[in-house]
């Protein structure tokens, strides 16, 4: 009886292996048609019109990527290509490198990745290109190591977010009053750059009645961000606004304001995912938030790659090309911004799901 159970378990295990196999052979088979089961395939694939693009995000199970993947998939398939995506569970090069190597082995035409490290991936990117695979970064870039990838498509220019957000916020505050900033950690580069921009803008004439009283640090932890937000509200009784350049802080600040019953008196703004701030926007606790259009990032990436592969688009600074959203351009270091920052408010927050 027990031996039977043992046998059953072995069968289950083997079935599990094959079940996993069964999930992807269709995609794999299609890729093989295009490349004859040999390693280098770019030329063959391009001639057929059928090409394979693999997108390797930061990690798996991360809803942030869903719209990007959808946009990417839509544009690649519209161009007649095959789109696959896979990722490791930890946002680490340890996990990304074997995945990239496997794609090289399979002979895909294009690898697009959101790099988990600025420098650890140099060798594997070179390996890919030596094997004839096109290499792009989509989402984030390998700053300082741009020569290892061909081009990068970024969602939006981060500095622009800073300018746009402080302007929207200042306007909603009526260009006067005290505001505090709730940031992540003291050395997080994105947030610090945003804060620099806030200070730069607020130094101007138009904003002379506004003042940043203090910067609080929530360390991107929900707990701490929450208590810091409350600390800010209590310490500055005349506080009119809380600016939060990170979603964690934003959600904490909005919650703190709602708990204290101060919606309308203390305004909250910053960067946040639409799904996380939707409730607050609908309940009028906040007026909105700012981020970027992730679906657009995917679409632009796909269309760019298609034109590089099939329309002879030259990858060089200054090259311009057409996308479904209008014209896009390669700037310094072959970087492309998919679009401008996206401001969410009551009217449009339901159009987005991430």
């Amino acid at each position, binding site marked *: 009886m*027990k031996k039977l*159970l043992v046998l059953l378990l072995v069968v289950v295990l083997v079935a599990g292996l094959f*079940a996993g196999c069964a999930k992807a052979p269709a995609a794999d088979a299609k890729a093989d048609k295009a490349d004859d089961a040999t390693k280098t395939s770019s030329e063959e694939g391009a001639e057929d019109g059928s090409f394979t693009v693999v997108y390797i995000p930061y*990690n*798996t*199970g*991360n*809803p942030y990527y*869903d719209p990007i993947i959808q946009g990417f998939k839509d544009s690649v398939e519209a161009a007649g290509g095959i789109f696959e995506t896979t990722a490791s*569970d930890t946002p680490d090069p340890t996990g990304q490198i074997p995945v990239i190597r496997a794609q090289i082995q399979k002979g895909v035409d294009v690898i697009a990745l959101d790099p988990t490290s600025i420098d650890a991936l140099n060798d594997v990117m070179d390996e890919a290109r030596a094997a004839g695979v096109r290499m792009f970064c989509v989402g984030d870039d390998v700053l300082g190591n741009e020569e290892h990838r061909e081009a990068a498509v970024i969602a939006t220019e981060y500095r622009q977010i800073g300018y746009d957000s402080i302007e929207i916020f200042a306007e909603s505050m009526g260009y006067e009053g005290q505001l505090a900033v709730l940031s992540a*950690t*003291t050395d997080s580069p994105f947030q610090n750059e945003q804060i620099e921009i806030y200070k730069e803008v607020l130094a101007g004439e138009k904003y002379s009645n506004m003042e940043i009283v203090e910067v609080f640090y929530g*360390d991107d*932890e*929900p*707990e*701490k961000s*929450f*208590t810091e937000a*409350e*600390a800010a509200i209590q310490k500055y009784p005349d506080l009119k606004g809380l600016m939060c350049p990170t979603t964690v802080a934003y*959600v904490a600040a909005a*919650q703190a304001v709602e*708990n204290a019953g101060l919606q309308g008196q203390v305004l909250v703004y910053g960067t946040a995912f639409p*799904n*996380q701030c*939707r*409730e607050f926007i609908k309940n009028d606790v906040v007026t909105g938030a700012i981020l970027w259009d992730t679906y657009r990032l995917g679409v632009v990436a796909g269309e760019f790659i298609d034109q590089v592969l099939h329309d002879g688009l030259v990858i060089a600074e200054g090259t311009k090309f057409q996308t479904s959203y209008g014209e896009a351009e390669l700037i310094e270091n072959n970087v492309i911004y998919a679009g401008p920052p996206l401001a969410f408010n009551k009217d449009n927050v339901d159009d987005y799901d991430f």
Partner: protein
Amino acid sequence: MSELVKQKKKISITSVRELGLVAIILILYVVVGLIEPRFFSFRVVMSIMLSTPILIIVALGEMTAIISRNVEVSLGSIMAFSAIIGGMIFKSNIDFPIVVVFLVATVVGGLLGLLNGTIVTLFSLPSVIVTLGTMNVYRGLMFVLMDAKQIDNMYIPRNLIKLAQPQESIIGIPYIIIISIGVAVLVSIILNQTKIGREIYAVGSNPDAARLRGIGVNKVKIIVFIFAGACSGFAGMIYMARVGYVNPVTTGVGMEFMAVAAAVIGGTSMAGGSGKTLGTVLGCILLGLMMTSISYLGIEGSAQKAMYGLIIIIAVVLEKIIKSKLGKEGR
């Protein structure tokens, strides 16, 4: 009546250990507060208290397992699995009665615990290895069965989130804290006052002797696993209330580790047969205090792991030293 007397006796004999823990907690709080004065505020105390219920409930389940001489390292995955199922119910209908979803999550957790217990007892295998395996199996199962995705904030009923806010509460204490204290009291009663509780201790102390006394060792073990799983499932809902979202990849990762740490700090012996609810709860509070202190002192989160490890080792070594000084032999 005599039961009450027995219980009172047990409370007054509450050993040096628990008092020691309370002392350590207070000392640590004061020291950190002196360095960072913002620590001395109701808000911060509330923040510390609010971070403990999830851990308390899971740790109580883990404690029970350890008492019976089993180690459960899949509790984090069970918590995530149950929370995802609960979340998916809310996603399809946000007005679904919260109490029912709590029940479903608890039952799901219990079932996964049952699976663990069955494998361990049916094949007489070491629980730590089995649960090491099932830890990953349950994570992956979420994807195979449900193509699990993150349950975003907007799908979670406002009333559930309110359970974790200080505003909606009894005398200023948020509901989830009261709930976790309630669970702790319940566990304490079960372990100290009921037959199954005594059997759990007996099985952990000396399984062979317990068997000779007519105790169904396998039955007890399975019950323990079901209980630990159920606790984790319940804790999954508390997580949803407190954190405001659930992610199938990251939720609960490392939770079992902290649960073991809390139980061990609280006096639960890895050899089995001993462990106190109060001790485990204090252990959770100490860990919560440490977590908050680290971020307030400006120490990077990077030091957390090192501290946890150090605390476990110190706690375990201290216990051994104390026990040998007092001449007891770990039973």
